[in-house]
């Protein structure tokens, strides 16, 4: 069997089985000037897979803004790099591991985290934080989900959460944030997007460019096995069918302990000054690392597979080149100094073997026991692969009328019960059951972990002295439902929300990374969604000054022909110049004034994109039908996402950053899923009544959390006012003595500031609309529902 595969005569049919089209095959013949052998075909097939080559997305990705004055390294390297001052840079990137996480949730998620961590420390940066953006099918039975389906989704969630935790916890990097969302469309195609952030000195950043003819090429880390062969090409670049479960052997297996050793050894080896270039072996393993290093460096490379440490005997060149065994690196050392590098790896107990050399002439030659197993010009393989401008087609317009939309309850209706339902829904409920399975505080940098602030905030210790000056904030966001209803506007919202979250933590947004999860690019409707989303991202990142520095595209997220919602997930990085100015969501003191900051100049909503003949009321209904409330309470998912005004978002962001720097506000929390009511409630839930800290005894009668009394006016229906999700808004709390100053700052930034009410300590959460109570309950009752429903859904059913 093992020998048989090397003797296979390659035909266009065998190429087709590798996912290589006839045209692509002809191109391979042209590049080689002959027919490829089976190993070469394997190499071309993974390098030209959608996952590695971006062949369908390239033409669109060009439209994204990637430059900025702080951007040190944009897309194309292992991770994006931005200047964060004091001679330091941050390396960060988000990546998907969707299909493996469905086939084998635990290992799929662990290797997703492992892969992104390697991308970061390959650049010479020590990882300091991970965020995970997770999307699953519904975990409770409902209109679109049977109990059987829900049970399966719960198992997938459990495996993914354990996997994310297991890897990060053992590796020793805190998992500080992210998001968890639920929609029926992710039922057989969960999304597992992992973001990692690392810090390095600016002059010590490493790139993956082979340099110096004659320099030795060194293989380090875990041994190569047969796991993960064709992970990139078969799992990540094809849609799912019923047989996909049989692809379990294509999923890699992670070993965080090995990766921790690899991290320490790599960073130590880099310090010797003898490392010229380094590249991790992620997707497409040895193939991708050798070919890309040579191509980027404009050199050739020659390696001998017989020297590659192998876990199993009898592996063919095809298998060794295509294995996706985890925790491996390829590096180029300075000739004559390889022993310095090898001794560091030996100290850490890791395999490190010289497997080849950098050569002249641009040819990648793979030898095996004295025979040439593959011989390919590296640059044409890596850079001159197929590029497709695939057909786009807008889907037939959705014909909707008022009867398809949310019907607002009349004024005066008490909405408390609906509010409780919303707080109990998995989308809104506390994610504590999940986040407590992640180590959030290792490395002692976490200033705001999951749920404490709108963004995760970690401080930066100087790598040498440990001195602390600045902090970084990160938020990942995406709204598949909105992108499904309007991919361009939905994508803009994703950027806006991530940037707004960062600003609400007090940090100035400086750069972004994106993970674009879509269906099959071979479907014109999907490509249209993709193109629209790119336009939205580009526009939003430009206006919000957050250039895209990297990320990945994940196509073929479909099962049995059904695509997921188009789901661009955006990670925005922000910088906080003073670590003591972190803003959190929790209300702080009884008597503080609650303000709504609104970046929109006009109070008219939803005018954009709504048909001119529709009146104001139906415009509101149309927009509200895309809300979390509408989905949870009525099951209606229709209409349009709220209109977005990017300049309004920008004004709000600038205003929040200024208020944080002034130290003028007590708390900040943006308005997003579930609207104003959820924002206010979460600020209460996160609060602690003064005097109830450690050691003090609490009398049973007194409230443990602060509360709020809110008075709303305006002509919008109460449900819209309380649960609407229009952007560019945040709730802040202010000491009465600081109110005048805050209002003044808001005016300077042309942000409207509406006084909504007060922080109280009577334990009663009350929202009045035009003088009538629409939500009225104790904070305790609301918090109980919110705090425990996810755990109940996952473990007690």
């Amino acid at each position, binding site marked *: 069997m093992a020998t048989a595969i090397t003797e296979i005569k390659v035909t266009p049919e065998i190429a087709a089985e590798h996912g290589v089209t006839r045209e692509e095959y002809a191109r391979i013949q042209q590049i080689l000037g002959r027919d490829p052998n089976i190993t070469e075909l394997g190499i071309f097939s993974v390098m030209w897979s959608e996952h590695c080559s971006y062949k369908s997305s390239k033409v669109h990705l060009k439209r994204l803004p990637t430059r900025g004055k702080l951007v040190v390294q944009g897309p194309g390297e292992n991770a994006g790099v931005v200047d964060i001052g004091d001679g330091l840079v941050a390396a960060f990137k988000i990546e998907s591991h969707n299909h493996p996480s469905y086939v084998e949730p635990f290992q799929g998620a662990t290797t997703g985290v492992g892969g992104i961590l390697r991308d970061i420390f390959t650049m010479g940066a020590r990882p300091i934080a991970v965020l995970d953006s997770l999307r699953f099918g519904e975990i409770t039975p409902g209109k679109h989900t049977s109990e059987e389906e829900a049970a399966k989704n719960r198992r997938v969630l459990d495996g993914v959460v354990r996997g994310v*935790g297991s890897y990060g916890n053992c590796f*020793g990097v805190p998992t500080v944030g992210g998001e968890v969302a639920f929609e029926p469309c992710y039922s057989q195609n969960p999304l597992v997007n992992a973001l990692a952030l690392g810090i390095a000195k600016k002059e010590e950043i490493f790139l993956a460019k082979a340099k110096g003819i004659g320099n030795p090429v060194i293989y380090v880390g875990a041994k190569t096995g047969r796991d993960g062969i064709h992970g990139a090409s078969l799992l990540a670049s094809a849609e799912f069918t019923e047989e996909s479960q049989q692809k379990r052997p294509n999923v890699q297996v992670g070993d965080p302990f090995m990766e921790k050793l690899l991290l320490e050894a790599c960073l130590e080896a880099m310090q010797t000054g003898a490392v010229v270039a380094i590249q991790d072996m992620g997707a497409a393993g040895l193939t991708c690392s050798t070919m890309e290093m040579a191509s980027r460096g404009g050199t050739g490379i020659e390696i001998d597979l017989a020297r590659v440490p192998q876990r199993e005997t009898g592996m063919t060149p095809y298998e060794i080149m295509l294995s996706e065994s985890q925790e491996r690196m390829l590096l180029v050392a300075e000739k004559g100094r390889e022993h310095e590098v090898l001794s560091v790896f030996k100290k850490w107990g890791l395999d490190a073997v010289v497997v080849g050399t950098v050569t002249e002439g641009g040819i990648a030659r793979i030898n095996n026991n004295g025979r040439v197993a593959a011989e390919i010009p590296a640059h044409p393989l890596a850079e001159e692969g197929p590029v497709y401008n695939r057909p786009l087609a807008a889907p037939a317009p959705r014909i909707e009328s008022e009867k398809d939309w949310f019907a607002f309850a009349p004024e005066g209706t008490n909405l408390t019960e609906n509010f409780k339902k919303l707080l109990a829904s998995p989308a809104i409920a506390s994610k504590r059951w999940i986040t407590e399975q992640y*180590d959030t505080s*290792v490395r*002692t940098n976490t200033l705001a972990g999951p749920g404490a602030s709108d963004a995760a905030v970690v401080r930066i210790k100087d790598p040498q002295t440990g001195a602390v000056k600045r902090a970084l904030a990160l938020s990942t966001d995406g709204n598949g439902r909105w992108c499904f209803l309007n991919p361009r506007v939905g994508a803009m919202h994703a950027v806006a929300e991530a940037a707004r979250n960062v600003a609400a933590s007090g940090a100035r947004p400086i750069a972004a990374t994106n993970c674009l999860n879509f269906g099959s690019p071979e479907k014109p409707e999907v490509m249209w969604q993709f193109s629209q989303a790119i336009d939205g991202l580009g526009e939003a990142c430009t206006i919000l000054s957050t250039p895209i520095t990297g990320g990945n595209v994940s196509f073929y997220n479909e099962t049995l022909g059904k695509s997921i919602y188009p789901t661009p997930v955006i990670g925005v990085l922000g910088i906080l110049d003073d670590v003591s100015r972190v803003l959190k969501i929790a209300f702080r003191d009884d008597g503080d004034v609650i303000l709504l900051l609104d970046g929109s100049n006009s109070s008219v909503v939803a005018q954009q994109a709504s048909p001119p003949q529709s009146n104001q009321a139906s415009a509101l209904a149309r927009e509200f039908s895309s809300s979390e409330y509408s989905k949870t309470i009525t099951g209606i998912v229709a209409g349009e996402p709220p209109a977005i005004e990017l300049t309004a978002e920008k004004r709000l962001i600038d205003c929040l950053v200024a208020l944080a720097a002034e130290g003028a506000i007590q708390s900040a929390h943006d308005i997003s899923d579930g609207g104003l009511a959820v924002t206010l409630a979460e600020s209460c839930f996160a609060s602690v009544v003064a005097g109830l800290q*450690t*050691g003090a005894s609490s009398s049973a009668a007194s409230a443990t959390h602060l509360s709020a009394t809110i008075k709303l006016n305006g002509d919008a229906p109460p449900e819209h006012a309380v649960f609407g999700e229009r952007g560019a808004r945040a709730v802040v709390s202010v000491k009465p003595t600081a109110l005048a100053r805050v209002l003044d700052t808001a005016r300077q930034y042309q942000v409207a500031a509406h006084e909504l009410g007060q922080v109280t300590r009577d334990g009663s959460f009350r929202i009045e609309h035009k003088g009538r109570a629409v939500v009225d309950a104790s904070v305790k009752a609301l918090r109980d529902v919110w705090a425990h429903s996810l755990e109940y859904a996952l473990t007690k059913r």
Partner: protein
Amino acid sequence: MKFGVVVFPGSNCDHDAFYAISNVLHKPVEFIWHQSENLANCDAIILPGGFSYGDYLRTGAIARFSPVMKSVEKFGKSGGMVLGVCNGFQILCEAGLLPGAMMRNSGLRFICRHVHIRVEQTDTPFTNAAQKGQILKIPIAHSDGNYNCDEATLAELEKNRQVIFRYTTHDGSNDNAGNPNGAVRNIAGICNRERNVAGLMPHPERVVEPALGSSDGLVIFRSMVEALVGAAKATA
């Protein structure tokens, strides 16, 4: 006075312990590599948290056989001050420097959260700066922190007042309710009979500055510093 922080392959709280001692307490500290049998004349040894040797087989089971542990055992048995945090506590149990063993958390999941522990004894070098009954807010982060031992050992521990930290609620009113992992008698930390070796599951090195949500971990390190200062005076 010098602290030593042992680095096993897979230790991941080594830098945090080092930082707490050097940058917050401003005391001398150095790393000690697991293959070294030389404790570099340190006066106190810290076995940090993490997943030593991947925690393969059983937490701490392999670390216990590393060269450095031979010296740590000798050091501990001759009265040297040794503190094990989380994985370090597990290693001390495996090495027989402390009695008992860890089981999986009762919920069978990794848990990371702030817990509250009560200082039960203050006549140890790890707690002498604390008030008896003082409640500390310190995070845990472990899968295997469910401390257990046989009845006779438990009786010994209680009789010799070796239980130095117990889980409780924020106001100290309900120990069972504050127990995150099922540990017997809500035990969060113990010392040996001679009181110079201690282990605890919560991570004091993670809460040494108010910005980190609590600075309650400082009292443990300050106690160690005071004990070392006291010991130096006694020998002077």
